[in-house]
């Protein structure tokens, strides 16, 4: 794992960003860098993205490297996107005392959420979508993984701007092996979400109005189950924090400022 750390000497709060994919780097979180005005920021790049794979990138090993890293940090607020949000929920559900807040962006966790995701995924499929899925299945390379996202860009971004937004993935250094090895287990964490309901830390669930992975109604369902506050950002797709960084920064600042002087 490779980490980019931006220190704020006036803050004791550590905001740790965990990316989705599986197999994407923290590139999509970089537009949130101005949060360093208030907090210490940790951008985590999972093994296989900007660093070599040290071991098999299955779900457990990817989770372990995050747990190892944050075990040495106090006052952690985990902020995970999509698959990264599932990991953040999984880690937080183990009642780590150093985690004092949780922010999840567009993460499907329950069976219901995955059902909706898959229904939406099957809408308006063209031959190009079918062909690239077959290509990825036959030849799961990093380049084809990026190509796959490019073909499916309207599924992940506001379609009006997706042709530009998709660069956050096509310019990334991705790890398809993490996707292949970890995606299935990510759909087995419903109990972790349920167990958060009674965990007395601030929890915020963010989703985009146009998110087809996690539509607002689906996000409300997940937020209710886990006891999260819910925030919906207009005109944004699944990469809401990348498409609308200023709104996301404002939401996170407001959310964390309620944590009683931790800022």
């Amino acid at each position, binding site marked *: 794992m490779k980490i980019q750390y931006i220190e704020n000497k006036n803050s004791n709060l550590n905001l740790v960003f965990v990316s989705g994919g599986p197999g994407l780097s923290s590139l999509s979180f970089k537009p949130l860098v101005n949060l360093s005005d208030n907090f210490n920021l940790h951008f985590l790049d999972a093994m296989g993205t900007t660093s070599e794979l040290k071991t098999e990138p299955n*779900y457990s090993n990817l989770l372990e490297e995050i747990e190892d890293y944050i075990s040495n940090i106090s006052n952690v607020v985990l902020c995970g996107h999509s698959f990264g949000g599932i990991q953040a929920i999984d880690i937080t559900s183990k009642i780590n005392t150093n985690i004092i807040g949780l922010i999840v962006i567009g*993460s499907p966790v329950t069976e219901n959420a995955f059902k909706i*995701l898959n229904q939406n995924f099957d809408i308006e499929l063209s031959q190009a979508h079918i062909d690239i899925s077959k290509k*990825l*299945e036959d030849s799961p390379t990093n380049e084809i993984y990026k190509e796959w996202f490019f073909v499916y860009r309207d599924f992940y971004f506001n379609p009006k701007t997706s042709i530009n937004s998709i660069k956050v993935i096509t310019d990334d250094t991705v790890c398809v092996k993490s*996707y292949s090895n970890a995606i*299935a287990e990510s759909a087995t964490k419903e109990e972790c979400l349920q167990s958060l309901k009674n965990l007395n830390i601030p929890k915020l669930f963010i989703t985009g109005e146009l998110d087809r992975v996690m539509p607002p109604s689906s996000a409300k369902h997940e937020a209710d189950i886990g006891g999260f506050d819910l925030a919906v950002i207009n005109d944004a797709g699944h990469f809401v924090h990348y498409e609308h960084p200023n709104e996301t920064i404002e939401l996170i600042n407001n959310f964390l400022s309620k944590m009683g002087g931790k800022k």
Partner: protein
Amino acid sequence: MKMTLKVVALLLAIGASAQTIKSYADEIASLPELITEQETVLVNLLNNGKAELREGNEPQVVLTEEEKKELIIKNMVHYIRLIEGKEILLEELQRQQFPDLDIRGILEGRQNPGI
């Protein structure tokens, strides 16, 4: 045990891979009997622990854990087929969560979308 597990395993191997229309018709005709027999086979398999499978003076056949597991699963699937439970099996498989298996990919021929 009149019907030995060895024979059952052989029957299954034949039944699963090369079932003819005739044998299928025969099977349908005696379905209740086949179901009862298969239930007995399953109960015996599950009760036998380290399976000791003998017929008459045949030498003792000791299955490894892997072989035993395979035999139980094949017989369970055969039972599901006999009771016409294929659709329920598929629905249940889709509901179940196997951390290391992409069930959707296996059943529907495509992988889960990235998230």
